[in-house]
């Protein structure tokens, strides 16, 4: 396929168009992914999550610089929220990374959530494949950071950075609420600010309280302090340290043969997603398009039947006949 060839050659135009088509749910894009899939699996994927304004995009910008210095090509997927009222979105993460726009070893792509919960956009998984096939050595994925549980990121990443800033009381609550489980590395951002050692102590205490099997593989999430982004020297040093830590984590995954389990997790999720979009969604779309859904809802309201009976009927009908 012509497209696959171009993407393999790193053609940004073709790749960004394909990502666009994947976002828009264009059927033909899916068949391209079929061709790309066997070629994937080379890139190292790093997820970056944390609340809005925590400095994720600024951090990504700093990481891009570091990875470039180390001779790696970098893809960035940055997710911002879609307005539930208008369906529109302003995708602003890229602003922080514009200085890399002209570097042909860097490809930044913004995505809108388009209603997806969990902190990412639906197309992120496939977009990672696209960048992977393009030959991006490292792919950085920035989540929305709406503060809700952004656990999807773990399904797509080899390493997850959880970014926290001092002086936000609710941060630790968020950790308790589940972000904790997904962190491979904690980043204390804007660490020049008051409260950074307190935050550090809190994270340590939290890690200490975790059940012993949590770190059975021998990786206890380190805490990296990142200095003020506006002080080039110290920020640069922090970024070096963070990049080293990411590399160490990757080495750990490889050494302990854990990479496989992360990849497996991604495969499982992708399969679920694919079944949902190839089986469930067409059926639902069909029922909506034919107006059948309305009739079913009416039946439920009239108490003529129940949701399970209807669903079983649908299953009998479609799963045999296909759509």
């Amino acid at each position: 396929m012509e497209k696959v060839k171009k993407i393999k050659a790193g053609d940004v135009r073709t790749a960004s168009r394909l990502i666009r088509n994947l976002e828009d749910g264009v059927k033909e894009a899916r068949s391209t992914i079929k061709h790309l899939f066997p070629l994937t699996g080379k890139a190292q994927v790093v997820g970056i999550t944390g609340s809005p304004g925590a400095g994720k995009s600024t951090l990504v910008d700093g990481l891009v610089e570091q990875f470039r210095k180390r001779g790696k090509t970098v893809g960035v997927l940055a997710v911002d929220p879609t307005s539930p009222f208008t369906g529109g979105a302003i995708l602003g993460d890229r602003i922080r990374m514009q200085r890399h726009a002209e570097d042909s070893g860097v490809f930044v792509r913004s995505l809108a959530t388009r209603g997806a919960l969990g902190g990412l956009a639906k197309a992120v998984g496939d977009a990672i494949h696209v960048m992977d096939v393009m030959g991006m050595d490292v792919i950085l994925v920035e989540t929305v950071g709406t503060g809700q549980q952004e656990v999807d990121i773990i399904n797509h990443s080899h390493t997850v950075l959880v970014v926290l800033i001092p002086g936000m009381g609710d941060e630790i609550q968020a950790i308790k609420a589940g972000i904790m489980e997904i962190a491979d590395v904690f980043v204390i951002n804007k660490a020049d600010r008051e409260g950074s050692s307190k935050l550090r102590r809190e994270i340590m205490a939290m890690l200490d309280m975790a059940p012993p099997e949590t770190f059975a593989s021998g990786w206890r999430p380190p805490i990296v302090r990142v200095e003020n982004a506006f002080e080039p020297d110290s920020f640069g040093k922090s970024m070096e340290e963070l990049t080293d830590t990411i590399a160490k984590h990757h080495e750990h995954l490889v050494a302990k043969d854990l990479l496989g389990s992360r990849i497996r997790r991604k495969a499982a999720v992708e399969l679920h997603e694919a079944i949902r979009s190839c089986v469930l969604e067409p059926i639902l779309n069909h029922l909506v398009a034919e107006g059948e859904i309305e009739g079913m809802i009416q039946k439920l309201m009239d108490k003529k039947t129940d949701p399970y009976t209807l669903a079983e009927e649908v299953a009998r009908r479609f799963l045999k006949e296909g759509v």
Partner: protein
Amino acid sequence: MYFAAEVLEKSSVLRQKWEDEVRRVIAKNPDQKPDHLWSTVSDLKIKRLYGPEDIKDMDFERDIGYPGQFPFLRGNQVTGYRGKYWTFRMFSGMGDAKTTNARWHLLLKEGQTGLSTAFDFPTLMGYDTDSPKARGECGKCGVAIDTLEDFLTLVDGIPLDRVTTSMTINPPATALWAMYCAAADLKGIPLTKIGGTIQNDMLKEFIAQKTLMCPPEPSVKLISDTVEFGTKYVPKWNTISISGYHIREAGSTAVQELAFTLRDGMEYVEDVIRRKGLDVDSFAPRLSFFFNSHIDFFEEIAKMRAARRIWAKAMRDRYKAKDPRSWWMRFHTQTAGCSLTAQQPYNNVIRTATEALAAVLGGTQSLHTNSLDEVLCLPSDHAVQIALRTQQIIAEETGVANTIDPLAGSYFVEALTNEMEEKAWEYIHKIDEMGGMIAAIEKGFPQLEIADAAYKFQRQIDAGEKIMIGVNKYVSEVQEPIPLVEIDDRVEIEQIERLNAVRRKRDNKAVKRCLEDLKNACKKGENVMPYCIEAVKNLASVQEICDVYREVYGEYRDPGLY
């Protein structure tokens, strides 16, 4: 208590009667528009009528007083405009230094009493004309200055010891002020004799104007350097012009302009005290301010009166300044560019006249009036003359300068002044809680408040809820053509030639040494001003100096908050 009890009693009875009458009338003849649309351009609700009740809690001595007395509601100058009108100061700069110098001489000949410099974008952003980033920009928005040679052409024939000059320059302020000081020196005028203003207000750059170079922290450090240098060696210079103008033009409301500007001022005061250990009274009298005068007449007057009172209170009570001159809020005003229209441009003369009148009634010390071609191009000779004449007519024909603060005591104006002060303090306290203005800016707080207001306003214009004549009401099909100023693309080529000639003839070793010294000063945290003066005298360019800052302090890019 401002009113006797019987007055308030009587008023309450009469008010009741009037209100009944109003209800009766509007039942038959409803108002032209619903209640909420009778508001200021900033969306502040205005009542149908104000009376004694609205100002009954004012204390005469505490809140009003006399000119030259705390809290300076009625002005700083005891003689008002009788001793001296406000300074007629037209902001101007275009093309190369020679062209701008000619415009300056024209304006002085026509009765302008102070100068004000508009620089072009490369200069404003600290780039030389031949920087790849500057392509296409030279001279388009102001005068192009690369080195001291250009600067000397700019001030040619200008008596630096007699005319005060304002320079709208921010990140490269140290470099341009150094040129002014060097120019004075070369003309044999001691630094103690020169007077003027550098805008040098970086906080409002992050908030509104976006001429950006270094991060907030070091930017404020450079400003404190100029304050210190001015305090010691150039005592008649205003080293910061704390500006609300840009904040307002970026789309803020009047209250936001008031609050953010004054809070910026407080931030500078705190920084100089903390960093330089100077006594507040040693520098506070040289702080000056710059406000917008927008189209909503009374709101603007109230804003300026409130500004004086807030600043006086802040300086006396918050910073314990003892010298009454530290309590003074002295300010320049510019009429609102964003209130003007490209459509039916002659209408802009009326808008500007109204806004200028508000500034005078608000007690400004200095004024720029926009030209009728504001939305189309830099002002033409003819347009700028009308704008200057507008001020002269207000000063010398209308009689408004006869008496001081003529609107004092108006129920409405006093009530509105109080309301704006109150709302401004709310913002100020909120920013205090965030940890000051730098912290608030890092959070994006003022930027986003302004963006919200700007968007809301644009929607209101689209919906016809706010009116701009010629744009969304009384629209005419025919467009009156007016002569447009065009800056020729040749200016850029010639300017680059001049710059290259300077580079060839100067002592490049000396330049290098000066820049090295400047860099060391930056690293050691020394005051940069003496090094800047030395560098510009050796014909270092604006960019060469700014590159040192960028290298040492880091570059700050627009965070593009939306």
